[in-house]
């Protein structure tokens, strides 16, 4: 502890690597053939993806009846998974946009990867609203298009807001990601000798020549996009939470939902990024770029957001009691002590209790432990959505319609399959694009920035 130097900022990249070595290191996965481990990993994710495809074929052929959904629990795993994956997609843009605006240099090592995860997670999430409908072939009705029946969509429905929010978020995230990639594409273009690769990189680098002027424009665009993406980070999950908050169902109809959902989303998103990066930095030897300090900072955010989520849980209980509304009170008591108590306590122990271990610096910096905690966080966050969706629906106003929800085999196939879909994209990403921003990392290496000390 005493060795900490407070007089100047500690570099987020360790060991002062040369710019050339960074180029080589980061582009290495793109220039080498995939090894055996990659294929093993890919075959696992593709198998899971296969389950996904089979699950979807069965669902489309026979109908939603192949899932566990019923009346009263008309939303089951489909919406749980949707909210879960949208949540996962929150870390990327938060890291790249909000932390960018806040001048958090440690974000550079992880931003690209996190953004990629955002894209893939939102893609995964986007599948669910479509497939959970009874007649997915008519999903076009959800878009306001002119038609001769003069039927318009219903602008008071939160599901419609979802359509806009998620598609906007996806579009902006994708553009943001791509803009960040342009200088790297140029770098790769310069490095490669393969003609096809060169052509592809040339097209995608949009004629980037590393000129001063390019950099000026680039920085401005990036800043504007960051400013544009920042409110989206907050709005997407706010609107997703409206799916519940705008309804009149006890346990859903809650004003705390927007901030609570955003905090939960950042919480799970960070946990997922942390999980994956632990592998990436090890496999690609990026330990000095994605440093233990970076991981520790992420763990601090997990601790913060986890505590916010915990606060929200207790506040929900308090408000339910304070409201004096019997169905509301019962919903929360039922969550904790009713037939789904097991799910509730999984949620609480994973989301509230497990992250509290991050108060200890040693745990924050120990990779296996933090890994396990983050896995718990994601399990917990999945269960949070399960608890919200399923327990509230299964016992609502009229006791006569109460029913216990049991998921079906297809539900699990699609849940597992969605991970297959997500990780297949992640794996392909690691071999197709630089998983760390070459340009940005170069900018934060010690000595890359002009400093008065060295004058």
């Amino acid at each position: 502890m005493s060795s900490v130097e407070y007089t100047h900022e500690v570099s987020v990249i360790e060991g002062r690597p040369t710019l050339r070595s960074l180029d080589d290191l980061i582009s290495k996965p793109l220039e080498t053939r995939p090894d055996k481990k990659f294929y093993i990993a890919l075959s696992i994710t593709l198998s899971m993806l296969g389950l996904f495809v089979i699950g979807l074929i069965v669902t489309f052929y026979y109908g939603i009846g192949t899932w566990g959904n019923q009346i009263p629990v008309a939303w089951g795993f489909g919406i749980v998974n949707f909210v879960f994956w949208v949540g996962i997609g929150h870390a990327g843009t938060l890291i790249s946009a909000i932390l960018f605006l806040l001048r958090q240099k440690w974000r550079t090592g992880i931003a690209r990867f996190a953004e990629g995860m955002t894209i893939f997670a939102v893609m995964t999430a986007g599948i669910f609203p479509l497939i959970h409908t009874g007649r997915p072939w008519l999903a076009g009705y959800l878009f306001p298009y002119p038609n001769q029946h003069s039927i318009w969509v219903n602008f008071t429905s939160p599901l419609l807001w979802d359509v806009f929010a998620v598609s906007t978020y996806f579009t902006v995230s994708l553009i943001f990601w791509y803009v960040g990639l342009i200088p790297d594409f140029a770098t790769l273009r310069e490095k490669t000798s393969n003609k096809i690769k060169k052509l592809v990189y040339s097209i995608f680098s949009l004629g980037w020549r590393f000129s001063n002027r390019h950099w000026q424009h680039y920085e401005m665009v990036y800043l504007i996009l960051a400013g544009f993406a920042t409110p989206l980070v907050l709005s997407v999950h706010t609107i997703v939470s409206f799916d519940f908050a705008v309804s009149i169902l006890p346990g859903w109809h809650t004003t705390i939902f927007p901030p609570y959902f955003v905090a939960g989303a950042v919480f799970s998103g960070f946990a997922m990024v942390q999980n994956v990066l632990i592998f990436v930095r090890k496999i690609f030897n990026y330990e000095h770029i994605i440093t233990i300090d970076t991981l520790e900072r992420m763990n601090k955010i997990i601790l913060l957001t986890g505590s916010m989520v915990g606060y929200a849980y207790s506040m929900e209980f308090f408000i339910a009691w304070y409201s004096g509304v019997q169905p509301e009170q019962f919903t929360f008591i039922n969550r904790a002590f009713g037939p789904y108590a097991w799910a509730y306590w999984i949620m609480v122990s994973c989301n509230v209790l497990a992250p509290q271990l991050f108060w200890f610096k040693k745990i924050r910096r120990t990779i296996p432990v933090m890994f396990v905690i983050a896995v718990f966080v994601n399990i917990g966050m999945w269960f949070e959505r399960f608890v919200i969706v399923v327990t509230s629906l299964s016992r609502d106003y009229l006791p006569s319609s109460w029913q216990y929800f049991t998921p079906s085999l297809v539900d699990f196939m699609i849940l597992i399959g969605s991970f297959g879909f997500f990780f297949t994209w992640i794996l392909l990403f690691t071999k197709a694009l630089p998983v760390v921003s070459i340009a940005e990392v170069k900018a934060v290496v010690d000595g890359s920035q002009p400093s008065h000390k060295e004058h």
Partner: protein
Amino acid sequence: MDKKDFWKSLKDYNGSDDLRKIKENEFMEGVTDDFELGKLTKLSRRKFLALASVTAAIGATACTDYRDKGEIVPYNKKPEHLLIGKANYYASSCTGCSNACGLLIKTREGRPIKVDGNPEHPITRGKICAKGQASIYNLYDPERLQYPIIKGRRSDWNRVDSEIIESLKKATEENKEIALFAGSVKSPSALRVIENFKNKYPTAKIYSYQLFNESARQKAWEITYGTNDYPAILWEKADVILSIEGDFLGNEGNYIENTRKFSQGRNIVNSGNLNRLYVAESRMSVTGMMADYRLRLSPTKQFKFLMGLVNNLYKKGSKIKLPSYFESYLNKFDLAEFKNNEKVKLLIDDLHYNRGKSIIYAGSNLPIEIHLAVNLLNEILDNTGLYDSKYSFVNLLPLSEMNDIRDLCDKMKAGNVGVVIHLDTNPVFHLPSDYDYVEALKAVPTVITISSTKSETADLSDYLLPESTQFESWGDYYARKGVYGLQQPVIAPIFDTRQKEAILLRWSEGINDKFDEGRYRDFIAETCREQIYNKIKPASDFKAFWYAALHDGFIEFNENVDKPVFNTRALDELTKVKILEGDYTLIITESYFLGDGRYANNGWLQELPHPVTKVTWDNYLSISPATAKKMNLDMNDMAEVSYNGISLKLPIFVQPGMSDDTLHIEAGYGRKSVGVVGEGVGFNPLVFLTKNSNNSPFVLIGVDIKKAEGKYTLSSTQEHHSLDDTFVKDFHRIRKIIQEGTLPQYRKNHHFLHEDKDELFSITDEHKYDGVKWAMAIDLNKCTGCNVCVVSCSVENNVPVVGKDQVAKGREMQWIRIDRYYSGTPDEPIVSNQPMLCQHCDNAPCENVCPVNATNHSPDGLNQMVYNRCVGTRYCSNNCPYKVRRFNFYNYRDHFADAYYENELTFLVNNPEVTVRSRGVMEKCTFCIQRIMEARSEAIARGEEFKGAGIQTACQQACPSQAIVFGNVNDTDSEIAKLRKHDLAYHVLEVLNVKPNISYLAKIRNIHTEEIQ
């Protein structure tokens, strides 16, 4: 040429030829000359456009989704009395049971699509039971027998007729008996057919057998009063009713009639009067659910209890004087066991102070002595004025004694029977197994079964003859005094079927002519002329009389009825009674919806939730919570019941309110051969029936029960919470789903329900409904939870059958359901029933969450569902606080039993005015919008203002207790407008301010205290 009004020039005015020629062409000369495709040499603009449009048209038609809808053949000659798109109604009679209720059958384009009661019919007045409502499915059952079968092979009627006549002749020559095994016969013509048959074949003998019957009541009546025909009861005139194990509102006697009359005595909304219903029973029945005071009484104690009442009330005064030996016998029954029972004290007082205005009734399954005691008690209390002798039950052909049937079996085994003809009966399933009927059948050379479906008996028959359904048959019925019912076919036999009477008639009249459906009709007309027309001697000629009768569906006439005179022979019988004791008593009752098993292949009835337990697609062993605890049994555990060396394993259902150590099973389930729908559903308790029964055959004293291995899943439409679970106890009261009061409370303050109500306000402006606005009121005082509305709705609105597994998952599709709530203790529960359907809220929460506007509001206040627009997000269901929306999780017609109901035949049952919903679509109650629209278009056609009077929803039309009222609230004269403002009207979950258009009229319990205990 005519002078025109307008002319352009003098030439025009004078009608010049040139000008006319010019005017013949639409366009001026030269403008259209080129437009002959053939003449055009190169690609002109017009040719291009012409070719392009043809291409587009071809492309468009080739790409449209043309589905082969099968052959559609229009009428090339318009049938008489048939207007396409307009329904025709025919009066007929139901043959589902021995009540022969009057029907009104709706047909569209020649096919029957809906059955309701005949509103003119004096007994049932427009109402029929759930079985009658659903019987339309039997007509379109894909597994109906479609042609005659000889030893499993398809045959034809000519061969069948000639072969059978040979066998009949042979049996006659060999002097072997011909046994006609019929159900209960209520048709005078059928009786004449049987007489003719007996004349032709002298060795023929008729056996009449009905599994669940009223013979104990009938015999007791005969003993007490010396007449055959026991009376109906004027329930509407009773102030106090005591029912001993009697389910007169559920499935005994003509329960539809009973329910109507009973509910007239429950008309608190209009008259402020209520009868008081005491029920002493061991199981929990529909009648028990309606009780103001309910006494749990095991079957072994019922006789003692009843005699105790007789003793007690006789001492307080009597209309008749009993002989002294009987008085001393009575002293044995002192009600000591009930000394501290408040309810019994109240009961005695009530019966005492309401002499002449009360009625005692006992269940059909109870032994004769109970019915004798009931007759005696009614006599003592001077209640005989409540007997309705005008419409007494007619005992046209007495049911065979069990001894006769036992003798038949012996004769069969001895080879003395040549032919057995089962006339739509199923003795293999129904007769006690120790009759050994299966073995006996093997010794009979010719076994004939006439039936519309396969059955256990049909499987063992040489000849299986397909019977026409009640929609394809002629008939006449004399089930009640003064009422002669007629049945007419509303569709020609769909398959090569004949009705059983016509078959027998042909066998006795010979087969020289071609078979004629009309022969039996003429035969009935003869009966009608002889037995009715000649008796009542109307002014019109017979032909006019006959057609008028067919049109009405019945003839009502006056019959002389003797005043019953009490006969002391009944007292002697009562002194001979031996009281049996045993650890456990098993009672077997008829299933509410499958009858004696006859309706087992009807999916709508199988899926109808049990009125009390809400279980579908199964029967089970009901036991009381205390017995369950004692035996360490829980819901869905398997138990083994044994009696007389026979045992049966079946699942447990813990039923609150049952008497301890009583076991209850409903019969009609466990059919082994009936069709895909009914086979293997449930368990058959009829195995316990025995020829040695020394009590009622359905009350078995001294059975054993033990826990068995394994678990079972009962599919019910309501989750079962243990009643004493404080966690969820009395939620229906706390949440104001059920609001109730007591008569003293109501009398003290009519407005008590709304005393401490919060004022609700909306932050937005309320929408104004200026024209018609629909609403419904449901009187919870009258609703018995009988479920007839549910079937009626399903038939009217093409609601599919989903199957047991789907019900278990909570995916039943019925648009209306009866919610049943318990309060009180598990031993002494208080039951509240509530029909629950779409509430058509003014501020409907489902509407604003649908992303595609598929559910929205009509200007007349209906919450509408646009199936074509629905994407199936199911958000509307989540946001519905009443959870009355139903989702097509599958294409259920395809999904249920390998598309059992998806075939050309069953499609005919669909109401053409209601869309058949595809999978992935949400649906719900529409307030029968098709009926509203029909009435509206009629009003428009007549040029009248549409006020909405006279429209009935399907549930309302079917409700036997007339608990449902529907109409236009903006019409201040309408009943609904008054009911909505009634002091007892409330909305479920009022506090949500969704403003439902269904109001419930709070149940008032006729008890002595102000608080509901």
